[in-house]
């Protein structure tokens, strides 16, 4: 008797689910290498709250979160508006050097290696 085919079944398409198994965290690791301090971010949102470009799409908190989850597609639009004014770094309660992270991220997004 042939065994039942256990690979058959249905799956809904287009899931919003974050798949940590497939997450690509290489960019995140490269950034951490350059700026290890930003691992202590607690996503409190102080940075975005004070951001000069905060109303124009700049969102470091979200960018960091997406980096951690390996979803890098939106990163450019989330960091392009940054003017490097430095207010975020002055208010971060965890002393993350946010400005340096964003600067390096902008460069890494343009340099392929």
């Amino acid at each position, binding site marked *: 008797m042939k065994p039942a085919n256990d690979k058959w079944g249905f799956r809904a398409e287009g899931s919003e689910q974050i798949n940590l198994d497939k997450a690509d965290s290489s960019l995140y690791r490269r950034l951490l290498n350059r700026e290890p301090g930003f691992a202590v971010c607690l996503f409190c949102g*102080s940075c975005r709250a*004070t951001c000069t470009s905060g109303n124009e799409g700049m969102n470091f908190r*979200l960018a960091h979160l997406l980096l951690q989850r390996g979803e890098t597609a939106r990163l450019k639009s989330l960091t392009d508006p940054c003017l490097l004014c430095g207010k975020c770094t002055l208010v971060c*309660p*965890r002393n993350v050097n946010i400005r340096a992270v964003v600067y390096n991220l902008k460069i890494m997004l343009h340099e392929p290696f």
Partner: protein
Amino acid sequence: MYQHNQYQKGKPQQVAVVGAGVAGLSAALTLKKQGIGVVVFEKGETPGGHLQQWHALFPDREPAAGVLNQLKQEASEQKISLRTQTEVAAVTPSGNKFRIETSQGEQNEFDAVLLATGFQLFDAARKEEYGYGIYQRVITSAGLEQRLGHGGTGLTVNGRPPHRVAFVHCVGSRDEKVGNHYCSKVCCVTGVKQAITVKERYPQCEVLNFYMDLRMFGTGYEELYREAQEKWGVMFIRGRVSEASQMHDGTIQLKAEDTLMGRPVRATVDWLVLLVGMEPEKRAQQWARSLGLQTGQAGFFSSPEKFLHPSLTAVNGIFTAGACTGPASIPESVNQGRAAALSVLEFLAEKDEAGK
């Protein structure tokens, strides 16, 4: 009952308690009831410490005045020797006793010293971007307690009740920029409690709480949070307030991020309440250095045996209790005071044995 008063020609051993807050008074009462001579030094005009400034205590909004009066009554019944407006200037070991010099110029010797110096509140002016001290309607949680207490001016604005009040959690705590990395523990539940109190007083007022995390650690605290949401309609927004500025009519406009929505948020409020954290009392650091007491990184006193004997210090004969060891609620401080008193009793008994 320890029969200390029978030894040394009938003279009881003397303990100095520094600070007449809830921890200090509780410890003094325990010691006095066991027959030990106690002198309590208090730098303020009246006993009770910060409890005198509170209006309603979490989690049930128990009137603070009731608890304070109970404590003061017991102290007077037990005839606790209380020296108010007397700040302890120096504590020096002298043989197997301790000499205490006060700001009044007195010098006395004691067999043991119990430090219950408590805390001071973070000076909110150091977070300049919130505008405390610059804008009139930015106040601290302590300021709010005063306004809502007896004789307080309340939160009316030009005769009308407030439309909207916002609370900011973690002011001066968990913040590297002011040098306080630790969590001050009790401010979250204070914020939730005060949010409810404002709603009780001004039911039409909208209340917003801006938090990073909600640390509802004690019995009844999580339930309080639920009550705030369910019964009182307090709105909790996860995200930090970055700046506050003042409008022409005195209302405060604040900028924050709603991290769960992922978008920046703006609000105009009648009052901005800053939930300030606890810091170790100033003097404590100086004594720590001169006496060799250990403090943790945050500056609060720490014990060499923090699991089984938290009231001890590095110096034999000096004990600690209450908020001077770290942010604590009132029941915790009272418990610590009593526990420290027990440690003092054990210490005095040993000393007595050794002396014989």
